[in-house]
């Protein structure tokens, strides 16, 4: 069913459950390292392997991160709450229960405002936050053999417990209604805003591609004008912002198709397929799994004092929404310019480049043009490029002081991205300085005049515009390092027309 027809007939109701892996040095309940990408099963201990007799101890920094995110999301922070055990068997979960929070979450009842573009200009949505709670991650299972990498058809499976016990925050929205045709964009904008918030708070590196930010998307449809929600599906494995958008859109279209065919939507878990942009059915939740939650008797309640919560509130940095308002005004950006910066995920990078001394316009230009192109080419996020804001600022400065032309500056950036060191090192090593020294330039000018007698004759005859060809020859001879303005002056001087 075409999307336009779907939104004419149905109103989507969304719910987003987002998991943020915290960037604490140690795991949620033990002192094992949380560094990503270690050799399998090297970051484990009796506690996170659930050896008999081992006991969990809560990571205080993780609680602090949870409270700070809760405060940034305008939540109430519980003065007393507990961890609960969520019981189910799965090979990558060492205890066969997950320590989580159930009916006593740490933070509740907040909101996050997001802006999306509509046909009538920007529209703001307030996304209600149901809760923020703490839990631990599972290990990772890989299926070996078979064509798909999925468990069916695999020869055997292997488990890596390095991730088991990494602290997670689960952020659950209240049902999001009234977004209509903008629902996919609203979902995407919410995840983006939450990601930027977590990054601004410094509690996580929130890299969707590494799984440190993961999103489950719940979608249901009700007929326009109706008041009873439909049956929802829960789509997992939504691993990029673009996928959030696509997953919501796909589920809306799929469910509308099911309903139009007179069938009913099945309550189930579905998996998003990155390549096709569609979702496929996972396990059915029709017979709800009974997790037998109960308070974890190994842990004592978490009871943050009001004083501590207020101390943490005072440490909150400038949050992304406020930062956008400030930057738009300070740099005098139009709404479109700001939107481009936000969409490119460049705002923090540009701001840091400005802080390092570059003019805002130059900083924006580098990140939005040249560097965005490189990021797309190498398929990494902009922030994943191996160049820092300080290095970009230095390149800008070198251009401003005349040491580099824009063309040479791009070569310097190449060098930095290539791991050749700081911009000044690259300039030095590659010999990229602009030639404005008359003795060096003079020889190139003389050669150009000698090699192009026709052009020289025209210039002598007063056709100054012909100097362009000679400047081009000088630039070619010097590998682009010549100061083009000075070369032109020297040519005209030698030909007696200056």
């Amino acid at each position: 069913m075409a999307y336009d027809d779907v939104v004419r007939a149905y109103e989507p109701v969304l719910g987003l459950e987002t998991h943020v892996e915290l960037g604490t040095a140690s795991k949620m309940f033990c002192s094992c390292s949380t560094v990503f990408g270690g050799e399998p099963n090297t970051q484990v201990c009796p506690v996170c392997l659930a050896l008999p007799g081992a006991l969990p101890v809560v990571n205080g920094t993780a609680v602090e991160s949870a409270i700070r995110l809760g405060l940034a999301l305008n939540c109430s922070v519980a003065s007393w709450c507990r961890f609960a055990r969520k019981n189910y068997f799965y090979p990558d979960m060492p205890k066969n229960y997950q320590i989580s929070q159930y009916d006593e979450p740490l933070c509740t009842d907040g909101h996050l405002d997001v802006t999306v573009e509509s046909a009538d200009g920007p529209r703001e949505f307030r996304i209600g936050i149901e809760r923020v709670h703490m839990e631990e991650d599972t290990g990772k299972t890989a299926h070996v053999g078979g064509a798909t990498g999925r468990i069916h058809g695999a020869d055997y499976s292997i488990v890596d417990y390095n991730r088991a016990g990494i602290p997670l925050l689960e952020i659950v929205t209240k049902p999001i209604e009234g977004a209509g045709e903008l629902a996919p964009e609203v979902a995407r904008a919410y995840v983006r805003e939450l990601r930027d918030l977590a990054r601004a708070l410094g509690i996580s590196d929130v890299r969707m591609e590494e799984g440190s930010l993961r999103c489950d998307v719940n979608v249901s449809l009700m007929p326009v004008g109706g008041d009873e929600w439909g049956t929802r599906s829960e789509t997992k494995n939504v691993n990029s912002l673009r996928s959030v958008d696509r997953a919501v859109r796909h589920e809306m279209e799929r469910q509308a198709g099911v309903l139009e065919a007179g069938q009913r939507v099945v309550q189930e878990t579905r998996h998003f397929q990155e390549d096709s942009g569609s979702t496929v059915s996972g396990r059915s939740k029709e017979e709800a799994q009974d997790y037998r939650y109960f308070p974890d008797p190994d842990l004592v309640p978490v009871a943050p004092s009001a004083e501590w919560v207020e101390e943490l509130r005072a440490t909150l940095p400038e949050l992304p929404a406020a930062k956008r308002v400030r930057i738009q005004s300070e740099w005098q950006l139009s709404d479109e310019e700001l939107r481009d910066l936000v969409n490119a995920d460049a705002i923090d990078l540009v701001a840091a480049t400005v802080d390092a001394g570059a003019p805002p316009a130059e900083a924006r230009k580098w990140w939005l043009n040249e560097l965005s192109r490189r990021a797309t080419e190498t398929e990494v996020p902009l922030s994943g490029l191996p160049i820092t804001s300080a290095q970009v600022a230095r390149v800008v400065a070198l251009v401003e002081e005349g040491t580099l032309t824009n063309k040479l500056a791009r070569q310097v950036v190449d060098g930095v991205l290539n791991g050749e060191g700081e911009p000044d090192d690259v300039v030095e090593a590659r010999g990229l300085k602009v030639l404005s020294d008359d003795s060096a330039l003079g020889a190139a000018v003389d050669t150009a005049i000698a090699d192009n007698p026709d052009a020289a004759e025209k210039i002598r005859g007063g056709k100054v515009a012909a100097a362009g060809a000679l400047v081009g020859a000088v630039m070619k001879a010097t590998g682009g390092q010549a100061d083009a303005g000075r070369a032109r002056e020297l040519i005209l001087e030698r030909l007696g027309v200056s």
Partner: protein
Amino acid sequence: MGTELLRMTAAELGAAIRAGEVTSVAATETYLDRIGEVDGDVRAFLHADREAALEQARAVDSRIAAGEELGPLAGVPIAHKDVFTTTDMPTTAGSRILEGWNPPYDATVTSRLREAGLVILGKTNMDEFAMGSSTENSAYGASHNPWDLSRVPGGSSGGSSAAVAAYEAPLATGTDTGGSIRQPAAVCGLVGAKPTYGGSSRYGVIAFASSLDTPGPFARNVLDAALLHEAFSGHDPRDSTSVDAPVPPVVEAARHGDVEGLRVGVVKELDGEGYQPGVLRRFHETVELLEGLGAKVVEVSCPSFDTALAAYYLIAPSECSSNLARFDAMRYGLRVGDDGTRSAEEVMSMTRAEGFGPEVKRRIMLGTYALSSGYYDAYYGSAQQVRTLIKRDFDAAFGHVDVLVSPTTPTTAFSIGERAADPMAMYLADLCTIPTNLAGNSALSVPCGLAPEDGLPVGLQVMAPVLADDRTYRVGAAVEAALASKRGSALLSESAYAV
């Protein structure tokens, strides 16, 4: 020399070792020989390692020779319940599912025993995962009561009580979840203490019921029990439920068994019908004895104690159903059916079917049911409410008495096989001890004579408030001294395995 060593109290033996009169190696060899001699009958140990024990003893001897200041129990041998992890010995918790497992880490209690210089002789038998009152639920066969080999030594820490009663060790560790130290101590004629919950660390104790499990000591006398209690107790940052407070002055209390002016409450609900007459007789005689020593005795009612057993059999199985989920054949222990064709779930299921005994399965099923959606409030929820009521009964009682007393068990040691087919009869063995576990306070069992009808030991239970463990030792020491002077000899000298 051998018999003389075996007869020494742990305190005496420790003093002799420190004074250089006896070496730890000699003491350890004597006890190892004793194990070799009698354990074929008593079957207290699952694992005893002569060479490992002697190596520890030699290390202590050289520390003493080097002039190191060691604690009062340095060099003294000890039997260690097989529920505590040990890096140098296998740890099974009495279960087939952990057969041959060698832990890569020591329990906090194990580390503290080592730091105090105690020599671990071996690991003692227990009901599987500490679920039982007789050791008959051990996957490795029952232990026997040294007073009468046809009887049970109590449980779940029955290997520990049998070992100490048969002079195979002067001391032993245990864990008490519903009475698993006090009940075996009582039926073997020993002193056994359940510290305040959180007073001793659970780190490295293979969990049965996390909110109830409490490590504690076994000894042949009150002072030895106090010395061991002090050696391994105290705050442990690895156990979140550990109490960050000093260990109560139990040794001091054990040395001064003075009950003059002490207010003693006799719990009305733990007396009367259903109790063996000889048990009640010795209990009431002991209460009179305390009165004679200057204690003020009053009757106290704790009405919620009547529902303690029912609440316990919801809470403990609920917690165990979750605690035992980790035994899934993935990372350690038994693995059944992994022939390359079966799924992980099938292997888990087959392993658990074969690796767990019937009582463990019964409790996992009870607990799974009690926590299920739709039943949680009626079962687990109400049981937690009962727990609160029991705490209130204790609080109210301790508002006007210093300690509460009761028989430790309703009967003396029962016969092996007698209750094995009747879970309810087995559960009743812990009738008097369970309220203390639910409330988390401290208690101790001290011998108070032999029941006239069967000549078997009877225990007096002394219960005190949270972190007032010293009071239980004070009363225990008074009873011990009064009984010894009345009888003219220590109770244990009348056992069949006395030395």
